[in-house]
């Protein structure tokens, strides 16, 4: 089970992330997770939202460059060493992770993973101690 992540191209400019979050707020779209990859002149915002289709539509209407990327979101126990076990298993099976981001709350940690091979990654994750989230 993969989920859709929004990737949005942003210039490095004060207030630019705010422009985007304001639009999502206005249309009642909730953000579950996001991370920002930045270079000297532009950034790529990676975003998991409550209503993907609607988010793409409203952001494109506002001239944002948006694309969808398939990613895997897992949750694992929020204890020391649990992510390490999972990553260890993926590495042993030759799955390369292009990027990931995570947040933990209570006894659960959520991790978004963008691997080089989605299907293989999903297959291997099913053998690990974690849940694959649908959101």
């Amino acid at each position, binding site marked *: 089970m993969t989920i859709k*992540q929004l*990737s949005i*191209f*942003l*210039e490095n400019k004060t207030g630019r992330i705010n422009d985007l979050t304001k639009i999502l707020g206005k249309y009642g779209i909730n953000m579950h997770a996001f991370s920002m*990859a930045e*270079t000297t*002149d*532009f950034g*790529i915002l*990676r975003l998991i939202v409550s209503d993907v289709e609607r988010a793409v539509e409203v952001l*494109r209407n506002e*001239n*944002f*460059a*948006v*694309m969808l*990327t398939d990613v895997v979101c897992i949750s694992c126990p929020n204890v020391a060493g649990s992510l390490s076990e999972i990553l260890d298993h993926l590495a042993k099976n030759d799955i390369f992770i*292009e990027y990931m981001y995570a947040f933990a709350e209570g006894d659960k940690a959520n991790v978004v993973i963008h691997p080089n091979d989605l299907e293989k990654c999903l297959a291997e994750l099913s053998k690990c101690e974690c849940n694959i989230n649908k959101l």
Partner: protein
Amino acid sequence: MIWNPNKECMSRDEMHALQGRRLQKLVTYVYHNVPFYRNKMQAMDLSPEDIKSIDDIVKLPFTTKQDLRDNYPYGLQAAPPSEIVRVHASSGTTGNPTIVGYTRKDLAVWSEVMARCLTAYGVTREDTFSVSYGYGLFTGGLGAHYGVENLGATVVPTSTGNTEKHIRLIRDLKISGIACTPSYALYLAETLDKMGLTKEDINLRIGAFGAEPWTENMRKEIEERLGLKGYNIYGLSEIMGPGVSYECQEQNGSHINEDHFYPEIINPDTLEQLPYGTQGELVFTTLTKEGMPVLRYRTKDLCTLMDGTCACGRTSVRMGRIMGRSDDMLIIRGINVFPSQVESVILEMPEFEPQYMLVVDRVNNLDTLQVQVEVRRDFFSGDVGSMLAMKKRLADKLKSVLSISADVRLMEPNSIERSQGKSKHVIDKRNL
């Protein structure tokens, strides 16, 4: 001092007569040797016999940079290949540069006019002179070089690059004169500081600065920091190279070597000749050139012409400071850049919208060029690596077309301001 008082201080009547004779000879020469001019003149029902004095020059057709490009490489050359002893090339827009061939006599004229310039600046046989324009296809280096040799001073062909080594030579060889771009002169001053030296450690007294626009404030700063007196030198490769005009000790305009390069000012819209004192586009006719003579070449530089005998004794017409361009050409680090060159590169790459902005600035006395482009939505990728690769592809192409490196900035779609009517593609923050 005056290198050639016969010519530089000639009475106006004599000069006009000389120019008239030379123009007649030139028109006959190009009519019989360059089909481009013959066709143009025939279309205007004009024959060489119609040119009887210098005032008849207004009957002749104009030549533009585009004509030079269209006739690449040798279409406008008048002399047979066996007579050409050197070529130079100036940066062109995408595709064709401008090729200029010189005969042995052309090179002798060039060295003569350069010697006049250097003498007006106060250079003598006792001086050691560093030529720090680029040597190569650019006319600056070799043009100034042979002028210094002709004058009889010692030339040090330093060219550009390795500034610390250059400063050591300036100090150790007691170099007293230098020819370079004004921005390079300021860079030299900075490097001098960095090396823990001051103007007291060197003996520079004369600077010949040109090839890019500069201001009175830059002149003061260069003079103060390097301890020299700075003079303007003007030239363009299509006409000859450096040495077309020069400042004297009075520094009230630049004297034009008008026995070789006949100047006019025209209204760039109506193409009418304008009187002295009126600002317009500067036009030159090469009265004595053999290799690639040009009739009424439109420089696109805007300035005024002044007549009247100068306090230095020279009678030649002077040109004022270049006040701008009648086209959109930019001069960045001495290199001519047209926005259309950038545009053609961007149009060839489907990744980008046909929207762009050039931001030119001067940071630490060096010109910088930033090219902002919009990434097309379909080509946006969520992967930083491929976006950076896209950026590099554009930067590499720009470098090969412009000959200078540009800082590319990827922008969001629709983020570059769309202007009403004539689109604006340049922000020049240099205040020149």
